[in-house]
């Protein structure tokens, strides 16, 4: 027996196929074949989670839509699509950004890390494990963005980048108020915030011990 494991994704894909009459979402993520008008397709090469990819894209395609609709890396989520919620957070060239507010064609040659590149179910990143340990989510929709952001936040503190919560601009150290301020671009409508902070604290403390 080699039955495919049933995942939420495969279930959703199954139901989408059964309801093929429902039009696809949104204009910007239209696949090439469906494009009716507009600018010539533009080639872009990216390295996503260590893998080189080459795409032909409508210049309107955001990095988020390139990841989800073209590379089928659906771990990165589309929440508000306006840079307000942080669900689309990915790490580009070592920096966390909102992938919804940047065009894929602007990232020629860039290295992108999504939640799929942070860890896998078999080999979780310490931050993923800590989110599970501390129940850092309920519905889970914001979680990939929260985790990408949290991983980058600890690196930012390590690199001595100050924040609004930093008392002395020359003394940057981990604290819960630093985490809360630095994570404010990631909204969790289930309000798992105390547990998210606990998860990040655990990883920070493990890092110190290591």
């Amino acid at each position: 027996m080699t039955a495919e494991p049933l995942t939420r994704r495969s279930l959703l894909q199954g139901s989408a196929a059964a309801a093929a009459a429902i039009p696809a979402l949104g204009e910007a993520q239209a696949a090439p074949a469906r494009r009716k008008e507009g600018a010539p397709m533009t080639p872009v090469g990216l390295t996503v989670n260590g893998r080189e990819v080459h795409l032909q894209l409508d210049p309107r395609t955001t990095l988020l839509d390139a990841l989800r609709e073209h590379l089928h890396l659906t771990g990165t989520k589309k929440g508000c699509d306006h840079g307000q919620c942080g669900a689309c957070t990915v790490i580009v060239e070592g920096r966390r950004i909102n992938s919804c507010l940047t065009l894929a064609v602007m990232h020629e040659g860039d290295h992108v890390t999504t939640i799929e590149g942070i860890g896998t179910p078999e080999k979780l990143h310490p931050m993923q494990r800590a989110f599970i340990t501390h129940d850092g989510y309920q519905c889970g929709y914001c979680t990939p963005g929260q985790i990408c952001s949290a991983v980058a936040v600890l690196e930012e503190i390590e690199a001595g980048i100050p924040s609004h919560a930093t008392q002395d601009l020359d003394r940057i150290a981990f604290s819960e108020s630093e985490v809360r301020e630095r994570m404010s671009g990631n909204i969790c409508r289930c309000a798992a915030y105390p547990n998210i902070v606990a998860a990040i604290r655990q990883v920070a403390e493990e890092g110190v011990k290591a």
Partner: protein
Amino acid sequence: MRPFTYSRAASVEEAAKTAAATQGARFIAGGTNLLDLMKLQIEMPTHLIDVNHLGLDRIEPTAEGGLRIGAMVRNTDLAADKMVRRDYAVLSRALLAGASGQLRNKATTGGNLLQRTRCPYFYDTRMPCNKRKPGSGCGALKGMSRSLAILGTSESCIAQHPSDMAVALRLLDASVDTASADGSRRTIPIADFHLLPGDTPEVENALRPGELITSVTLPKPLGGTHVYRKVRDRASYAFALVSVAAVFAKDGQARFAFGGIGTKPWRTDAADAAALSGAAAVAEAALSGARPTEHNAFKQQLTARTLASLYRQKGV
């Protein structure tokens, strides 16, 4: 988003030339504000010129003892820069009070100066807005104006300027360096860079068509104690209702600039001159000529209280 073509500029000259020669062209830097507005079809450029690869990402001391900040320096890098932290801390503080970590990683110095208002009537394309659609009227004048400006307003527009960074730059007497398609360069004092709305709220700054911001220059450090106090509806990641940037000298003299209350970053000589008379006097001088609405009149008292809190923090 409406369709557009995209090109990557290889030099400042090429970028300015392409922009001047292409109808409907816009520069794109961080894109955090422009793409947001393009999705809402408030901005509808037909061509985007990517100016991220022009080597405008350095922070260097000037011969005059100041600092030249490349237009593509990210807000995160500017706030974290050692020279900025040491000599222009009010600029670090203002930057860190704005946006989120993700946005600051992308947003640029030049782009921040050009960001558009967050007036709800500018954002809602079903509403009249003289800034978005000249001549259509102002929905805000008799509408929800709680977040909007009380200074520098006109019968056409009461939209507030949204930037924190620009308030600190106004305080520091920064200047904006530009390049034009004909190869000419010029420097615009920050005080003259942003324009009052008057009858033409759609014209927001002194840039000519195709003119590209290449850097922002700070004069030599002022010394003193630098403070940026921002009051907003949430403790983080929200625009200012009122913000005050200040530098206090040892003798009690000070200078002030204000965000959230003006149609441009707000600064008056009278407010600076009142520094020794205390917070209430500074507030009165700064708010001279204010024309609040029913909904945003609270910003006057909030400005006075923010200043009072600043004076207490400073211990003067």
